[in-house]
């Protein structure tokens, strides 16, 4: 095996691949990175067995093909190399010599056959292709609402449903729920429902581009899901559990509705939250005619009161929320205005974009 790569060609792909390496795995080979040196391309593969990534690298010159796994230390080593040609070459023991100017490094290689990675099942159920920007948008709009801990496994991911031309995504931690649906150009034949682990979603968000022109291919299998861009292929296990019946908790009837400037509200909440106590980030929203008061008070420390002009002509109403849940949604949506729909201080609030139905955010109040 021998190939020559410029540092710029190989350093970033290696950095990306390092996201997917198992940390503290008991299977030693999993702390390695697999190199597949083919005729015209080098594939870099890494996995923690829940998710795996294959990154395709175009390099300067490939002189001999080969396949080997190297310790993940290679990532940091290459990062420290000068901007010059790096030669990768196997020796007679199949270990890999990496040279660059006067630096000479040797990596003990693991046999490629011992490198286990996540494989899709034989039967691909369906393929969907959509612009990367759309997927990025879908994931960004809901992923922050997913449960961060794995205490309830089925909530520790993003639910995604493909049905006809529709995609529906949901994430919830049982205190708030983000829902988004959109229509795509392609049509799936059957209905598919997956819970994609939050880790996978977060890595995807890092990797895919906010680009309308670049496409991503989603391959659906029974127990895994695959995402393919031009040069990265990610395979992830899905969470094999039932997702809660979210439709049932989306409230339908409200008695009051407020339209609020998003940025004004965001910056006010960000100020008020500084006064709340470490543990409970409770703030209070009081709606009055065309006015919103955002406030909090902590014993022996202080109080905050913000006033915002809004559109509201319901009765006075007061409701308490965890400020973080508000900030999360306010900084995610990009529209100028948001709409909050309310019933009472004990009922879920519903946030959406005025006049549009594709995005829904449910936030549960705090009872006092």
């Amino acid at each position, binding site marked *: 095996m021998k190939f020559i790569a410029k540092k710029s060609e190989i350093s970033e792909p290696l950095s990306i691949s390092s996201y997917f390496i198992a940390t503290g795995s008991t299977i030693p080979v999993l702390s390695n990175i697999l190199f597949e040196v083919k005729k015209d391309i080098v594939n870099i593969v890494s996995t923690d067995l829940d998710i795996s990534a294959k990154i395709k690298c175009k390099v300067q010159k490939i002189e001999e093909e080969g396949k080997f796994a190297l310790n993940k230390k290679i990532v940091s080593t290459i990062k420290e190399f000068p901007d010059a040609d790096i030669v990768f070459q196997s020796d007679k023991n199949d270990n890999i010599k990496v040279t660059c100017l006067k630096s000479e490094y040797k990596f003990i290689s693991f046999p490629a056959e011992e490198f286990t990675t996540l494989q899709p099942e034989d039967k691909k159920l369906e393929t969907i292709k959509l612009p990367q920007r759309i997927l990025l948008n879908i994931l960004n709009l809901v992923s922050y609402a997913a449960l961060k801990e794995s205490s309830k*496994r089925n909530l520790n991911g993003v639910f995604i449903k493909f049905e006809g031309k529709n995609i529906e995504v949901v994430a919830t931690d049982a205190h708030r729920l983000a829902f988004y649906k959109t229509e795509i150009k392609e049509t799936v034949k059957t209905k598919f429902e997956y819970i994609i682990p939050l880790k996978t979603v977060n890595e995807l968000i890092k990797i895919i581009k906010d680009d309308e022109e670049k496409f991503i291919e989603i391959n659906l299998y029974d127990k895994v899901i695959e995402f393919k861009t031009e040069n990265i292929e990610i395979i992830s296990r899905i969470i094999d559990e039932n997702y809660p019946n979210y439709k049932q908790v989306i409230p339908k009837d409200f008695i009051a509705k407020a339209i609020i400037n998003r940025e004004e509200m965001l910056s006010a909440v960000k100020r008020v939250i500084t006064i709340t106590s470490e543990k409970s980030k409770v703030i209070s929203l009081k709606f009055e005619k065309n006015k919103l008061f955002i406030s909090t008070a902590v014993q022996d420390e202080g109080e905050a*009161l913000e006033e915002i002009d809004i559109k509201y002509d319901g009765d006075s109403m007061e409701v308490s929320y965890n400020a973080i849940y508000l900030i999360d949604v306010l900084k995610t949506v990009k529209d100028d205005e948001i709409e909050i729909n309310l019933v009472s201080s004990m009922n879920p609030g519903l946030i959406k974009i005025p006049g549009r139905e594709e995005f829904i955010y449910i936030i549960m109040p705090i009872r006092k």
Partner: protein
Amino acid sequence: MTSNIWYTFIYKIKNDFPNIYIWLENANGYYDKNDNKFIIEVPDAFHKKTLDEKYKYELISILREILNNDEFSLVINVKPEPLFQTKKNNIPKITIKEKQITLPLETKINYIPNLNTAFKFDNFIVGNSNKFTHAACKAVAESPGQTYNPLFIYGGVGLGKTHLLHAIGNFVYEHNPSMRIIITTAEMFLSEVVRHINEKRMDEFKEKYRNVDLLLVDDIQYLKGESTTEEFFHTFNELHLRNKQIVATSDSPPSELKLEERLKSRFSSGIIADIQPPDFELRVAILKQKAKEINRVIPDNIIAYIAEYVDTNVRALGSTFKTLISLSDLNNVEISMELAKQAVKMTNPVKEFSKKISIDMIQQVVAEYFNIKVQDLSSKKRPENIALARQFAMYITRSLTDYSLVQIGQYFGGKDHTTVMHAIDKIEKLIEKNENYKVLLNELIARIQK
């Protein structure tokens, strides 16, 4: 924070002092170690007044028992008003008791219970030895949580405990499909706890177990491990407090289980039903039922023969019966008394011999061997040779007969079952350590079986 002390306390109050319980339903309490105070917080001054004036004495004496402490003082407080003074209209009060409301998300958790549908009340044959237990199970199945709760069923192997447990489950599932039923064994419970702890998913576990309407636990005697029993204890308390039905089976009564005392006393607080080995009539009925199920006619004398010789449990009856049928089918011969004898011999080798082994005989052989009087075995005499003889006799009785520890104690002069346990333990250790005792034991058994 709701402590275990509070649970134990409110549990006791609920069971024994329902008149006080109504004043404590919305209360919370905790024990303040530093000040040696037990503090109960009630919602309003009226509750406080009532408890203070009418029930303080009782509360203190109950708490004294639970805390195992004579010195503490009891303080009943009205739940503290938010300490907060707000100065402005628009600023809300933030109290300590604020609570994030949760979305009422419903996941289709797999509550289809893992029931063996072959075990129903319909095909459970009732006789003298199990009629009470059968009736109790039926009552529980008809109104779970309302009659006998917890229900504790005990009895020897193969007498139909598991059958009844599943029968309850099947009955409830048929009549109330919306009820959440979990049927498990102590061992499955244990492995589930361990797995959830390892995966840091105990919340899920708790949610699963503490939200059931009917919890059926088979072979509770195998419950062990600190976190497991702890978890079970809390599950038990929570379900019981909310009037959810609990049924457990075991090979011996609660008092003889190697469980924590508090768990034993929980079970003892409900109904305890035992299943005795089937009597002759029941054995005959069972065999006839089995014959009917497979549409075979078996002569009454053969049924009587099997019923007489296979007197231990229902399962043994079943296997003897099956063997008899197989022998007949495979060899293509009629069912005869000869075949029945062969089947009994094949499936109950020891039992057939030990059939006639009575405690009397054991006592006689042992007394003779040790050169003491038979009465000495039932006496309280403690000279070493008598004590040893008595322990051997108890050990052999336990090994060769089906008598329970309690029964053996009775036969040996009304001794406590712990005495019997101790004897068995001692002999076990002796024969393990010293080859000679093993030889002696074998010699004794040989003589008894002769």
